[in-house]
């Protein structure tokens, strides 16, 4: 939990750095997390400043960062109404957000971090933080077209890699 409600500084930046990961050998990767956030004043209020949540990625152990996700105000909140009390989320206040890490699968060790920039509004909660990877079946990558399982008893899956551009149709023939 990021306690912006009681964090009276403005513009203060704090980092939650995660253990480094190496995505090498995978074909796609995503960073996902659940977030719950509320604000103190209406999102339509003008001349306001907002608590900001970012997801940052570093390929040089934190010397420099690239921002992959940045939300504040109406884009960040998950609690519908402005809340002038200390925000504690209920089950319906959570949202799953994700960031595509596929461009970084060949970047060696990467460091992911959350950055909170406080404006003393209300709390932000994070949970269920995961790095998800997908590895394509090497036989599918080599052939570009695969039918599995084989032999089969019920459903068969016809898979293409990459996307089957120019495909008109698929038929099963006895």
């Amino acid at each position: 939990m990021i306690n912006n409600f009681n964090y009276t500084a403005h513009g203060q930046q704090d980092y939650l750095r995660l253990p480094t990961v190496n995505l090498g050998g995978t074909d796609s990767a995503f960073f996902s997390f659940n977030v719950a956030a509320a604000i103190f004043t209406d999102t339509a209020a003008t001349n306001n400043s907002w608590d900001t949540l970012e997801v940052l990625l570093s390929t040089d152990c934190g010397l420099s960062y690239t921002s992959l996700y940045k939300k504040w105000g109406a884009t960040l909140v998950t609690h519908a109404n402005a809340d002038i009390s200390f925000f504690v989320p209920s089950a319906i206040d959570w949202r799953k957000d994700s960031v595509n890490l596929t461009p970084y699968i060949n970047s060696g060790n990467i460091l992911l971090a959350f950055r909170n920039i406080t404006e003393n509004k209300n709390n932000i909660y994070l949970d269920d933080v995961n790095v998800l990877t997908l590895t394509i079946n090497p036989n599918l990558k080599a052939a570009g077209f695969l039918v599995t399982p084989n032999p089969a008893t019920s459903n068969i899956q016809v898979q293409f890699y990459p996307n089957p551009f120019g495909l008109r149709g698929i038929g099963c023939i006895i």
Partner: protein
Amino acid sequence: MGQKFAQIDVPSSGLASTINTFDISRYPAGMYVVRAVFDDRVVIKKVIKN
């Protein structure tokens, strides 16, 4: 032989799913052919139904 019994048509947009599923549970055991027709080629794979 050569009778098509299941067909997945591709939307007119030309965008197809990377994974397509056929239910062959109600068909007798034997060898079947899955045939994918592209603009410029046809590819086939044999599949055994137990």
